[in-house]
C-alpha cells in the first residue's frame, strides 16, 4: 500500500474528523493506502510540515495555499469539502449590551492568533461593516476563558467550541459567518505538488477514501454523532448541532470551481498582492467518484 501522510490543521476543524472517521471505517485500507494522520496546532504548522516533507496532504483552503506558495511551499488545493464557514461565529457574553456587529466598533475582540483564520474573519468583518475594533490574539485555548472573565468584549470562535459555548450559556451568538459570507471554497484538501505528481494514483485513492468517509458520515447520522461527540470531547447535544450544520452540507465529490477559489481570495485578501486563482488548485483529482 502507498503511504500518505495527512496533516490536519487543528483537531477541532471538521476535516480532521472526516479523516479520522475514514481511517476508522477502514476506507483507506480498502483503497490500498496507508494513511498517517497528524494533528498540527494550526494550518500554518501543517503547511510547515508539508514544506519539511513531513506531510503530503493537508486540510486547507486557498487562502492558506496562497500564502504557502508565496513562501515557497508548493501546494495546491486538490478537493473541496465545504463552501461555508459553518459554525464560525462572533460571540459576546450572554449579558453583553452588544446586539449588532456594528456595535463592536472600538471593542476588544479575541482571535486565536494574528494571521490565523479567525484573524482573517475579523478583518473581513471590519471591512464589511466599515468599523474598527481591536483584534487581540489570545490563542485557541484563551478565547473562552477571556470571554468569561470579561477581558474581551467578543470573540471570533470556531466550531464545535462555538456550539458548546452557546449551549453552556457562556456566550451569545452575534453573527454566524456561514450567513455573513457568500459561498467560497472554505475547506478542502491541499496536496504537496511533488506528491501529487509522483503519486497521482495514490492521492486519487486517498481522496476517494476520504469522500467515501464523507458519504458514510452523511448516510449514518445515528452512528456518527456519538463518535463525533467522543472525538471532539463534547456532549451529544453539541455533536448533533455540529453534525446538522456542518456535515450535512459537505461536498459529495470534492469538485472545485475557479470562481469559488477566487471568491475565497477576494474575501480573505488581506492587502496582499493579487494571486492567480488558477494556480492555487488542481482540478484533475475531482470529481471524486465513489463506488459503493
Amino acid at each position, binding site marked *: 500500500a502507498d503511504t500518505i501522510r495527512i496533516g490536519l490543521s*487543528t*483537531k*477541532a476543524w471538521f476535516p480532521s474528523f472526516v479523516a479520522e472517521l475514514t481511517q476508522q471505517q477502514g476506507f483507506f485500507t480498502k483503497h490500498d493506502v496507508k494513511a*498517517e*494522520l*497528524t*494533528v*498540527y*496546532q494550526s494550518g500554518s*504548522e501543517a503547511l*510547515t*510540515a508539508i*514544506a*519539511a*516533507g*513531513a506531510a503530503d496532504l493537508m486540510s486547507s483552503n486557498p487562502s492558506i495555499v496562497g500564502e504557502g506558495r508565496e513562501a515557497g511551499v508548493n501546494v495546491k488545493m486538490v478537493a473541496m469539502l465545504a463552501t461555508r464557514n459553518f459554525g464560525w461565529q462572533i460571540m459576546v457574553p450572554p449579558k453583553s449590551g452588544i446586539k449588532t456587529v456594528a456595535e463592536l466598533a472600538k471593542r476588544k475582540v479575541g482571535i486565536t492568533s494574528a494571521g490565523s483564520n479567525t484573524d482573517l474573519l475579523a478583518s473581513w468583518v471590519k471591512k464589511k461593516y466599515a468599523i474598527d475594533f481591536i483584534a487581540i490574539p489570545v*490563542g*485557541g*485555548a484563551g*478565547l*473562552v*476563558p477571556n470571554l*468569561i*472573565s470579561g477581558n474581551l468584549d467578543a470573540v471570533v470562535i470556531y466550531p*464545535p*467550541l462555538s456550539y*458548546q*459555548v452557546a449551549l*453552556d450559556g*457562556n456566550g451569545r451568538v452575534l453573527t454566524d459567518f456561514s450567513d455573513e459570507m457568500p459561498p467560497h471554497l472554505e475547506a478542502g484538501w491541499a496536496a504537496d505538488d511533488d506528491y501529487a505528481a509522483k503519486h497521482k494514483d495514490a492521492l486519487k485513492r486517498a481522496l476517494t477514501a476520504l469522500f467515501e468517509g464523507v458519504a458514510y458520515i452523511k448516510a449514518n447520522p445515528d452512528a456518527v454523532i456519538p463518535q463525533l461527540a467522543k472525538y*471532539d*470531547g*463534547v456532549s451529544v447535544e453539541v455533536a448533533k448541532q455540529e453534525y446538522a450544520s456542518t456535515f450535512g452540507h459537505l461536498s459529495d465529490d470534492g469538485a472545485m470551481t475557479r470562481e469559488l477559489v477566487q471568491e475565497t481570495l477576494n474575501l480573505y485578501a488581506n492587502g496582499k498582492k493579487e494571486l492567480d486563482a488558477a494556480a492555487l488548485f488542481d482540478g484533475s483529482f475531482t470529481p471524486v467518484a465513489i463506488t459503493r
Partner: protein
Amino acid sequence: MATRDAVLGYGAAGAVFLALWEAAPRLGWVDERLLPPFSDVAAALGAMAATATFWQQVQLTLLETLTAFAIALPLGALLGVLVQESRLASLIFKPLIFFVFSIPKSIFLPIFILILGIAFWQKVAFGVFSTVFIVMMTTFSAVESVREDQLRVARSLDASTMQKILFVYLPSMTPVLLEAVRVAMIFNFTGILLAEMYASREGIGNAIGVWGLGFQIKELLAMVLFVSVLAIGFNEAIRYVEAKCEHWRN
C-alpha cells in the same frame, strides 16, 4: 530527619493548596468555569485514568522524556566542564551559548520537523535541545564554585584531569549540579510537551493542546495536575538520588 521535614513541608503546603483550590470556586471567589474545584478535576482525572489511551500517552511521553534526559544531562555536563575548564573555550563559547539560550526554543520546532519528521526522535531531539544549554550554563557556575585549596591538594597528588573531575570537581559541585539536574528535568519535560503540543499524533502534550483548544478545562486541568504530580515525582526521585549521593560523597 530531612525526609520527615520534607514530607511535613509537602503535606502542609499540599493540603493548604488543595483546600484553597476546592474552596475558591465553591465559595465563588473565582469563576467555577475558569477554575473548577479540585474534586471535579480529580474526578475527571479518575475517569481518564480508567482508559487505556491515557496510559499509552503517558508511557510514550515518559519514554521520550527519559531518553532525552539521559542524553542531555551527561552531554551538557561534559560540555560544560570542558568549556569552563579551557579559558579560551569559555571566552569563545560562553557568550554564544548564552545567546542561544535566550531565544525561545519553540521557534526552532519547524527545523526539527524538517530534519527528523514528527516521530519519537524529533521529540527527543527537541527535548535535548531545550535542556542541554541550561545544563551547560549551570555546570559553568558549578565549576566556578570549586575551591582552590582543595584543588591544590589534588594537584600536589598529581591527579589526572579525569581524577580531578571525578573526585574533586564533582563532589564539590554536587549541590549546584543536582540543582542543575532538577532544573534540566523541567526544561526537558516542558520541551517534550511543547513538541507534542506543536505536532504529534499522541502523547500528553498533544492531549493538553487539544483540550485547550476545545475549552475542556476539567480535562486540561486534570492532565496538568497529573503532569505536575509526575514532575514532582521526578523531582523527588532526584532528591532521593541526592540523598544517595550524600552517602557516596562521604
